């Protein structure tokens, strides 16, 4: 890079891929890192120092389930000492009151708990973990009692989308200050299970109308973040705020990725925190520079007036649907594959949902082929 690269805002720290839940839409890669590959405490502490020195503002302790790491307390304390704002992104089924209070004492600011539905039987079925929903609700109350900020993360799809109004009520009842209505995004496990998850266009439209109205009604009470499945969109999402622009993600083995799904793109080389500093990787990593900015863009992206707004959408999605990560994101209506993508979503949503392929080590044996062939030039 000749021009200097603005520092990222936040570090996504995937401490582990171990998780007691088996959600079939998990954002982790199909090939999960085993515990024996996880980087040690000292390395994470150094990484946090480097992140703070770069001027990053926040760290998101995530996974897998980050609370399976016994050194979480040490990492939270170190983040706080370095002025980094700590978020804990958790399934909520392993954390007890004693440990939560200790984390709060050490400087944790915010807990995000994922919910699979508002009703226990369906939630537990989707997460593949009996009794999970009840534990999550109990933890949400504890978070509130401990005085930490609370986000309800509602992962929404065709098998629970009718409960979006209930999700909002649940968040208000729990005293959460924020809810993410996050429609499933189709990478990795979710891509494998897409037909089981993608809602119909009508379901999406109704939900969007409801959320838009609720946002106005709950202004100042509940912050609502809303993510739509962009197969039905006209323009792609600004994925990660642009490749290599706002975030960096460290996987459990110490590989530094532009986003959590980046490993799904073959041919990219990711640098490791074992070999380089975070600042060096941010500026020099070939994986970050490959799709950073606008120079890599094909037409019609390059001359598009939205090029520096959506930064070309999502590279992982472009790869998943076309086999070429450097082409137009098919979520964009200017992609020759847009109509086909929309039609595919409609078709899958109209059929009966297939059985889930649950997220677990070794469940990724089926071969993944791109859905569409590369369009003729």
């Amino acid at each position, binding site marked *: 890079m000749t021009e200097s690269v603005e520092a990222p805002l936040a570090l996504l720290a995937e401490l582990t891929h171990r998780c007691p839940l088996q959600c079939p839409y998990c954002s982790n890669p199909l090939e999960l890192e085993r515990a024996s590959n996880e980087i040690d405490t000292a390395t994470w502490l150094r990484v946090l120092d480097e992140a703070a020195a770069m001027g990053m503002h926040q760290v998101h302790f995530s996974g897998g389930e980050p609370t399976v790491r016994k050194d979480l307390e040490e990492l939270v304390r170190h983040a706080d000492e370095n*002025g980094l704002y700590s978020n804990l992104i958790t399934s909520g089924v392993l954390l007890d009151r004693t440990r939560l209070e200790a984390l709060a004492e050490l400087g944790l600011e915010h807990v995000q708990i994922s919910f699979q539905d508002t009703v226990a039987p369906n939630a537990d079925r989707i997460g593949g973990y009996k009794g999970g929903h009840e534990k999550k609700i109990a933890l949400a109350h504890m978070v509130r009692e401990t005085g930490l900020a609370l986000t309800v993360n509602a992962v929404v799809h065709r098998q629970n989308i009718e409960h979006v109004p209930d999700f909002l009520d649940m968040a208000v009842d729990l005293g959460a200050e924020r809810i993410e209505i996050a429609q499933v995004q189709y990478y990795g496990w979710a891509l494998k299970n897409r037909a089981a998850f993608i809602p119909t266009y009508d379901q999406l439209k109704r939900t969007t109308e409801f959320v838009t109205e609720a946002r106005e009604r709950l202004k100042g009470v509940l912050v609502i973040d809303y993510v739509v499945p962009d197969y039905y969109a006209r323009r792609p999402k600004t994925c990660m705020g642009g490749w290599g622009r706002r975030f960096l993600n460290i996987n459990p083995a110490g590989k530094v990725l532009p986003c959590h799904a980046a490993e799904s793109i073959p041919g990219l080389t990711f640098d490791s925190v074992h070999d380089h500093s975070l600042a060096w990787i941010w500026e020099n990593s070939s994986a970050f520079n490959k799709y950073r900015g606008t120079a890599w863009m094909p037409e019609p992206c390059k001359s598009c007036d939205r090029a520096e707004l959506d930064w070309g959408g999502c590279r992982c999605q472009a790869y998943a649907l076309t086999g070429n990560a450097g082409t137009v994101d098919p979520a964009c209506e200017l992609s020759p594959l847009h109509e086909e993508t929309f039609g595919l979503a409609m078709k899958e949503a109209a059929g009966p949902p297939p059985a889930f392929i649950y997220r677990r080590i070794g469940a990724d044996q089926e071969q993944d082929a791109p859905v569409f062939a590369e369009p003729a030039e």
Partner: protein
Amino acid sequence: MPNFPRGVKFRFNKAKEQWVILAPERLLVPDETAVEVLKLCDGSASVGNIVDDLAARFNAPRDVIATDVAALLQDLADKGFITA
């Protein structure tokens, strides 16, 4: 008495030499005027106190400052960055 709610921190980022409001998975970089207002939001000063302080220090008409401060705080409250 404007104050920062649970999970919201108004901090100076030393590496970037920049004031920021940090909130759950969000952040906001306030402009210079907003920074002066936010420095006074400690939960014990009323909006009136804040306006008086700014009017004295910046030698500007009190009613103009009052209007600007009210608009700023309402906008931040709507977004969950501050409580009244």
